[in-house]
């Protein structure tokens, strides 16, 4: 079947709509030896978008270490990565962004982000057991900022709650940098037995392609290309998909049941960005095959849809199933049981082509490899000038606060530090009956039924740190997520990541992306945690300004004995409190500097040797049952870390003889990587000190647990008052009310 090359070269406007450059159009024409027709142009644009084709990030992502004996499926191979956790079990996980849709329609944008990542996990044959969400909002004193934040949280809860997958963790940070371009990174974790791992490959000519789930509508057309251009605010609502979590719940149960009850399913692939286009092309790409699609068999929810619209629709809650030739009915019978509509819409071929037919007419004929190998771009990595401006911090020019207690309460009330409960109580974090450490701790901990094990999960990423030093920020995202996991006692095993950056075509953003990946790679090597999956979200800009570069890392850890777990809350009056780690607190890039002095400046640091040592130490202490609590010392510094452990355990702190580390505000609120606040019974003190000495990790005694006050250095506040300020800070901010702090 041939296509007559009668098409005029497309206008600039058409190319903009499909997000291709003129050069890419010519490149495609050369590869095809003819100009693509309009349907083909849309397919090429979708597949070559950053969202699907990783054309700017692919050359950089290869720097992340991705190999280890326990990695079963590495990045890019399937819809999500998989690692062996022992007992014949594997964890499948991935994080993905839905930033641009959430900027336009926060509730549905965030909800469908959750829906998409869930499908990526059960496509692998795994039952989703946990969701985490890494969120970045613009200032909440602004009406639109609150509308976006509340809508995003509401949408995440709506989808995850209905699905019955617990949302067990995540983080939230607020900064003017994200005004108009919030970040919504949803992570899903699934559990399965090794032999249940299912591929998304379309193999074996003659095998059948079944489309199941929702009907195909006009929603979300150009979602992928939309995510790959600047300024989401200039776009319109039509590109945002609308979710139906009930349909997805049926799909989940039906897909897992069909995998369990028949061997007729050879591959499963969800329909995500660019819908039928990428799902069919990627399946064929993995199988080294071709596919033919008969669009007249695709059930529609709108009349008069063109082949272009059917191929690029991003209607949610759809899956493509590859069934053995002649056995489609066995698969469809299970879908019918669950009330789902399904149709055979095509076959696997040996041609190596994506052949799209509409009532017998050829609508598109393109080589699969051309679509899966998007052209890639690399740019020179040049250190941008802004780094010199923001990199220096003159402490002498920075006044110390007259009353540190006021600054302390201001920090506790700030939306970046205050209790996250107003958000996570809107998420069902208990369904599944596995949640051992619920949201609010350093990492979530889920037991694995039928084994003594538990898995620990944490997401982390600090845009401010990465803005000040992209290498340190990238390394710190890995280090902190691993540290949070280690604080439960679990051993970090592997990570997934989402890279949220500005336009790679801008030199500063490209430098940030490149250096942040270098930092992540260095930390991942040091901590021996390979990457197993990920997602890239570029073009995060609003009004011409790039967001703070924000790498988000989702870390998985394994605790061999769930009973050994350690929490963050102080537990017993009289326990000794100490800081483990060599990190020296600095005001550079700290939350205190930002909130109290309204400045973003300085040079953050990380020492990966110290980081590895302190994490190993805390895990050894926990496995030795020596600790009552362990808590990462991060945003807000030592004073805030002590307060958080005090709130979690409902115990006061006696630390008025705090050892000074530089000036007072630096001691109280200075931040550094590689520090952990621990508490332990006095009788365990000698063993704790000996273990620290063996690993050459400095141990700094800070005080004792007890009473109903927070006495930290010269500060002395009642626990009840501090906790009230901390518990209400974010709730009031989300409601648009001033904090009492």
């Amino acid at each position, binding site marked *: 079947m041939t296509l007559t090359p009668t098409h005029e070269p497309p206008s600039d406007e058409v190319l903009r709509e499909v997000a291709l450059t003129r050069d890419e159009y010519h490149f495609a024409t050369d590869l095809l030896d003819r100009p693509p027709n309009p349907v083909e142009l849309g397919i090429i644009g979708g597949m070559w978008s950053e969202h699907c084709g990783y054309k700017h990030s692919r050359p950089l992502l290869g720097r992340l270490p991705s190999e280890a004996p326990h990695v079963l499926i590495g990045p890019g191979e399937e819809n999500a990565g998989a690692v062996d956790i022992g007992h014949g079990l594997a964890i499948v996980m991935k994080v993905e962004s839905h930033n641009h849709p959430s900027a336009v329609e926060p509730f549905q944008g965030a909800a469908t982000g959750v829906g998409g990542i869930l499908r990526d996990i059960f496509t692998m044959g795994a039952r989703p057991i946990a969701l985490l969400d890494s969120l970045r909002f613009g200032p909440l004193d602004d009406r639109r900022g609150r509308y976006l934040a509340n809508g995003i949280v509401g949408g995440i809860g709506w989808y995850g709650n*209905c*699905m*019955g997958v617990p949302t067990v963790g995540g983080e939230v940070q607020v900064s003017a940098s994200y005004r108009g371009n919030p970040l919504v990174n949803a992570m899903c974790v699934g559990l399965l037995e090794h032999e249940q791992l299912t591929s998304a490959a379309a193999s074996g000519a003659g095998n059948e392609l079944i489309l199941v789930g929702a009907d195909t509508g006009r929603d979300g057309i150009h979602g992928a290309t939309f995510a790959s251009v600047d300024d989401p605010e200039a776009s319109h609502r039509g590109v945002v998909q609308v979710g139906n979590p009930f349909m997805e719940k049926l799909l989940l149960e039906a897909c897992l049941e069909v995998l369990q009850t028949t061997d007729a399913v050879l591959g499963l692939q969800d329909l995500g960005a660019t819908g039928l286009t990428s799902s069919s092309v990627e399946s064929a790409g993995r199988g080294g095959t071709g596919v033919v699609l008969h669009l007249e068999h695709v059930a529609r929810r709108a009349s008069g849809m063109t082949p272009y619209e059917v191929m690029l629709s991003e209607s949610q809650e759809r899956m493509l199933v590859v069934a053995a030739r002649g056995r489609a009915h066995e698969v469809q019978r299970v879908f019918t049981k669950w009330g789902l509509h399904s149709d055979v819409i095509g076959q696997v071929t040996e041609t190596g082509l994506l052949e799209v037919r509409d009532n017998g007419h050829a609508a598109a004929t393109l080589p699969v490899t051309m679509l899966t190998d998007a052209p890639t771009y690399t740019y020179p990595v040049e250190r941008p000038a802004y780094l010199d401006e923001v990199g220096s911090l003159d402490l002498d020019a920075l006044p110390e606060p007259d009353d540190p207690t006021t600054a302390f309460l201001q920090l506790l009330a700030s939306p970046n530090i205050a209790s996250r409960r107003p958000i996570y*109580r809107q998420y*069902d974090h*208990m*369904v599944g009956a596995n949640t051992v450490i619920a949201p609010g701790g350093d990492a979530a901990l889920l037991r694995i*039924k039928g084994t003594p094990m538990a898995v620990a999960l944490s997401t982390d990423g600090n845009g401010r740190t990465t803005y000040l030093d992209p290498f340190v920020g990238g390394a710190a995202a890995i280090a902190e997520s691993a540290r949070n996991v280690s604080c439960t006692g679990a051993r970090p095993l592997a990570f997934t990541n989402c890279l949220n950056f500005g336009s790679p075509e801008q030199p500063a953003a490209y430098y940030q992306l490149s250096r942040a990946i270098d930092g992540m790679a260095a930390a991942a090597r040091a901590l021996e945690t390979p990457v197993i999956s990920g997602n890239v979200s570029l073009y995060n800009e609003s009004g011409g300004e790039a967001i703070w570069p924000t790498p988000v890392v989702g870390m998985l850890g394994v605790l061999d004995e769930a009973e050994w777990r350690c929490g963050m809350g102080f537990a017993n009056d009289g326990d000794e409190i100490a800081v483990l780690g060599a990190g020296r607190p600095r005001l550079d890039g700290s939350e205190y500097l930002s909130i109290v002095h309204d400045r973003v400046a300085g040079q953050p640091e990380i020492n990966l040797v110290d980081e590895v040592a302190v994490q190993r130490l805390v895990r050894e202490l926990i496995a030795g049952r020596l600790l009552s609590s362990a808590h990462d010392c991060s945003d807000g510094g030592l004073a805030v870390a002590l307060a958080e452990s005090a709130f979690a355990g409902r115990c006061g702190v006696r630390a008025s003889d705090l050892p000074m580390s530089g000036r007072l505000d630096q001691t109280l609120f200075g931040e550094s990587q590689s520090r952990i606040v621990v508490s332990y019974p006095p009788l365990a003190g000698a063993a704790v000190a000996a273990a620290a000495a063996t690993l050459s990790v400095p141990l700094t005694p800070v005080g004792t647990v007890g009473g109903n006050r927070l006495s930290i250095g010269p500060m002395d506040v009642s626990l009840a008052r501090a906790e009230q300020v901390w518990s209400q800070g974010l709730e009031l901010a989300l409601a648009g009310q001033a904090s009492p702090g």
Partner: protein
Amino acid sequence: MNAAVVVFPGSNCDADTLHVLSNVAGMHARYAWHADTALDDVDLVVLPGGFSHGDYLRTGAMAARAPVMTAVRDHAARGRPVLGICNGFQILLEAGLLPGAMLLNDSTQFRCEWTHLRVESTQTPCTSAAGNGQVLRLPIAHAEGNYVIDPDGLDQLHDHDRVVFRYVSPDGKRSAHANPNGAIDDIAGICNAARNVVGMMPHPERASEAALGGEDGRAIWDSLLAAAGA
């Protein structure tokens, strides 16, 4: 004791409930499908939590009209115990097996958090082994648990000791602060006139193992086992 956990499309606490009935309470538990028409082999029917039919139309409204509900009615009419948890409670209301209805929580938001319940009546199979006035710590997870009933209906509940659980503070006292959803009279659970059908919003299956933060939910299973043995 033989138990069935009914699975409606969109149920999502079915597996948790089956796990606890089997592995914690030691019952012989199985699933029943919403299209099933017979439950003759079981002593206990549990309608689990979730979002049956997506909670579209009204929570529980479509599930209440599923074929299995005829079997549930027959089971109840024979005086055998039926427990509806969260969405299961909502389904029992829509099916008319319990009186009243649910509104959106007064916070207008979904709430997942620990609450304290006071056992107001031990004269049901679900509370027979609990102490009168005993305080149980159980979690909730719902958007529509704001129970309402007309004044006459409320009088009926009061007059016949049919309020089974109330939300209270940890010390067992009633307070507006302890009520997580605005439910009338702090009602968290009720029973029918024959006392064998119980609906409750909190999730005892999430509080039956120490590793998950509490075991107070066992009071419900212990009661059911005791009632069956009696």
